[in-house]
Each structure stands twice: as structure tokens, then as C-alpha cells.
């Protein structure tokens, strides 16, 4: 199975995921990112932290960008 890395961009800063996780497909990676974004978004809101520019960047083993998910996008439960 391919390995996907979930880096978290906070404005100019980026929290690197050095380990990644094995998932079946890019769709699976997207689903995983949605669940992660909900959790991160909820924590940011509770802590009163800004969320505007924050995104999850999904990269593959070649460090190619597979998907970008703004945290705010998961405010819509159908996202």
C-alpha cells in the first residue's frame, strides 16, 4: 500500500509528518484528512486560535502534493 504524509500548514509554518501512514488510495487519504481536519479545527476553535489559513497537505512518498484540505472546508459535514 502507498504511504501518505499529512503535513499541517499554519500560515507560514508547517508541521511536518515524518512518518506517514499506509492507505489504500488517494480517496482513503482524503477521508483520513477530513477526520483529522475536524479534530484540529475543533481544538483550534476551543483554544480560540486562528484557523483561517490552516490546511492539511497530503503528500505521497515522492513528496508530490496529492491533495490540500483547508481546515475550514470541513465545517460543511458533507465535505
Amino acid at each position, binding site marked *: 500500500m502507498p504511504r501518505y504524509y*499529512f*503535513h*499541517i500548514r*499554519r500560515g507560514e*509554518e508547517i*508541521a*511536518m*509528518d*515524518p*512518518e506517514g*501512514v499506509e492507505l489504500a488510495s488517494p480517496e482513503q487519504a482524503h477521508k483520513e*484528512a477530513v*477526520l*483529522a*481536519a475536524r*479534530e*484540529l479545527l475543533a*481544538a483550534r476553535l*476551543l*483554544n480560540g486560535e486562528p484557523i483561517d489559513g490552516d490546511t*492539511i497537505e497530503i503528500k505521497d512518498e515522492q513528496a508530490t502534493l496529492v491533495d490540500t484540505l483547508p481546515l475550514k472546508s470541513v465545517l460543511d459535514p458533507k465535505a
Partner: protein
Amino acid sequence: MTMKTSNVLLQRLAAEEMETLSAHLERIELKRGDVLFESYLPVPYVYFLEAGLSSEIATTSGKRLEVGCVGREGFSGASVALGVDVTPHGAFMQIDGQALRIPSSELQAAMDACFPLRRTLLFYIHVFMLQIAATAIADAKHTVEQRLARWILMAQDRAGDELPLTHEFFSLMLGVRRPSVTDALHVLEGMHCIKAERSLVIVRDRASLRQIAGDAYGVPEAEYRRLILGDGAPSSAD
């Protein structure tokens, strides 16, 4: 000749008490992932850890969550010391180490025969209950950063400054998704409390970690010092 050990509970025993026990103690190397006891199965041995770190795990909706951790300050298998045959929890090693293990029935017999051993182990179980309560409090009342800081402090207490732990493991420990761990480690690293590398967290500034953890850390630790180490009166942390 009395067996030497770096387990702090066994160190509290008098030489003759340790001698009675040592006939049944066996030193064993433990690797990450080694199971110490399993959910709802008889607990064959109690492990007095001398190095490394183990986790006691509860399972909810098929997900595993750490409720407590044990290193050389304690022993794994509190239920045995309470006379219970099986427990819903499980335990396994997080960081390689070693232990003196004793068959559960031998430990129960020794506790019946030796009051100081019994008292020391029951004091420790009281502290372990406080640790589990502190985990519940942290999960309910503290942010992921605070919980991560608490957990790193507890791991440092037991295993030193270099903690070979993956984001995946932290995710299990804290009951959050892996990206929340990535995010929180980044925050702590930005504050120069830790250095996070692939599968390795290095503690750089314990005082700052204490500050971030706040009262999420320290209550069981203070009770341990009071009851086990005989260090001072009842007090809050520090």
C-alpha cells in the same frame, strides 16, 4: 546474596524481605510491543520494571487508549496484587527495557507473608489509581498540547531524555488522530521544549514542559514521593 535491582519499589524492601522474594524473581529483557498481560486473560506474571516503559490500555469501541504507564518506579499487574484473577485492561511495552518478573501466585503468597511488601505495593496502587484519574482529568479538561507535555514528562521520568516513540504511539497514548500529534509536537518544538525527529522525541527543556502541562502533571508524582520515597508531607505538586 541479595539481588540488586533498579526497581524503586523493590529497593524500598529490607534485605531479608528482598531475599525471600528473590527466589521467585526472574530477570527478563523486554522489547517494545511485548505483552505483559492481556484483556480478560489470566495474568501469568507481575513485572517489576527496571528500565523501559509500559502502558496499561483500555479498549473502547474497538479503539485502544492508554490509561496509565509504568516504568522502574512501579510494577505492572496491579489487579494481581488486589487478588483479582483477570482484568478488562491489557499492558504492553512502549520502550524496550528489562524487569524482574514473578509468577502471580508467588507474589500473592509473598504479600500474605510479608507486611512491608504488601504495604509498599498497596501504596503504589493508590498512586497508580491517581495516575489513571489524572489521565481522565487531562482527557476531559486539558488541550492536546498540555496532554502531550504531561505524557512526555511522565515518559522522561521513567525512560530519560531520549524517547523513541512514533506519532502513531502518541496518537494511541493521547487518544487523538495522528495529525493532532504532529500539530502538538510542532507547537512544543516551536517553544524549544523538545526536539522531534522521526520516531524520536528528545526533551530539551523540562521546566517549560512543566509550565505547559500545568496541573495536568504532578499530583500522582507528589503522592509517590510522599508515600513511596517518604519525602515530605501531603502537598500539591512541587
